[in-house]
């Protein structure tokens, strides 16, 4: 029996690699939508992923694009008229193709995996570009929405109403059992 805490402690100290989903978790599809990429007329905003499957997308207002924290999706601002680097023959677009362009990581805070019990299947983060200058791109996260596999929005109540009720039931049961035990003790005493 004494080996159980040792094993648990050992595992506790091992940080899981980024691409391994811990038991009880599932991956969710992550998307980002930019509200105002056309507000900055001198620039063309592009989202690119350099690791894993290659994605280069010209960002349109209100149109979601795939985001991956694992593969490092980055937003680039290219001066208008610049040819957008694109993949040929399904080959990955190297990061060097984007060298010298302004870039920023989307401010996405939602985890890439959620509890396997969660109805959440897709997460959409809406961001806004506050400034593009030679200093860089400034982004602001506006909201994060969660959707189930049918595309319905998932609210806080839907996620936690049943588990919350179960916790209350458990607490009530424990209090009842504790009281009954004390009553028995008093009767016997």
């Amino acid at each position, binding site marked *: 029996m004494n080996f159980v805490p040792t094993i648990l402690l050992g595992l506790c100290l091992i940080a899981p690699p980024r691409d391994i989903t811990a038991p009880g978790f599932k991956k969710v599809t992550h998307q980002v939508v930019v509200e105002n990429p056309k507000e900055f007329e001198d620039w063309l905003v592009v989202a690119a992923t350099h690791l894993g499957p290659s994605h280069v997308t010209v960002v349109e207002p209100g149109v979601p694009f795939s985001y991956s924290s694992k593969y490092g999706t980055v937003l680039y601002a290219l001066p208008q008229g610049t040819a957008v680097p694109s993949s040929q023959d399904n080959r990955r677009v190297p990061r060097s193709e984007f060298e010298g362009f302004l870039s920023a990581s989307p401010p996405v805070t939602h985890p890439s995996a959620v509890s396997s019990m969660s109805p959440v299947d897709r997460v959409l983060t809406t961001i806004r570009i506050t400034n593009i200058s030679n200093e860089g791109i400034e982004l602001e996260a506006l909201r994060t929405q969660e959707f189930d596999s049918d595309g319905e929005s998932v609210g806080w109540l839907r996620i936690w109403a049943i588990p919350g009720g179960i*916790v209350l039931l458990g607490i009530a049961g424990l209090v009842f059992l504790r009281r009954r035990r004390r009553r028995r003790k008093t009767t016997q005493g």
Partner: protein
Amino acid sequence: MIYLGTLFATVIAELLVAALLFKGRPPKDLWTVILCVNLCTHPVASFLLNGPWHGLGFWPIEWLVLLAEFAMYLWVTHLKTSRAAYLSLATNGCTVALSFLLP
């Protein structure tokens, strides 16, 4: 339903482990206590895994569950401290192992 299914599987696994630990002669009310303890800790652990404290990670949360269940066994049952600790360790050790095996 997925949630209730995993809760049900956890309770059954912990009841079986407790039955083995007490060789089929558990203290009075132990089955009900195990059920109620899991009704309390399982959704909270799920919230910690899914909620804003996601960064806490799987193993620290498992440790918190283990300590919480140990405290609850001490509070509600007649078990000695060492027996309550063994019960919490054994039941949670088993369900942690199951969580890696089951989809």
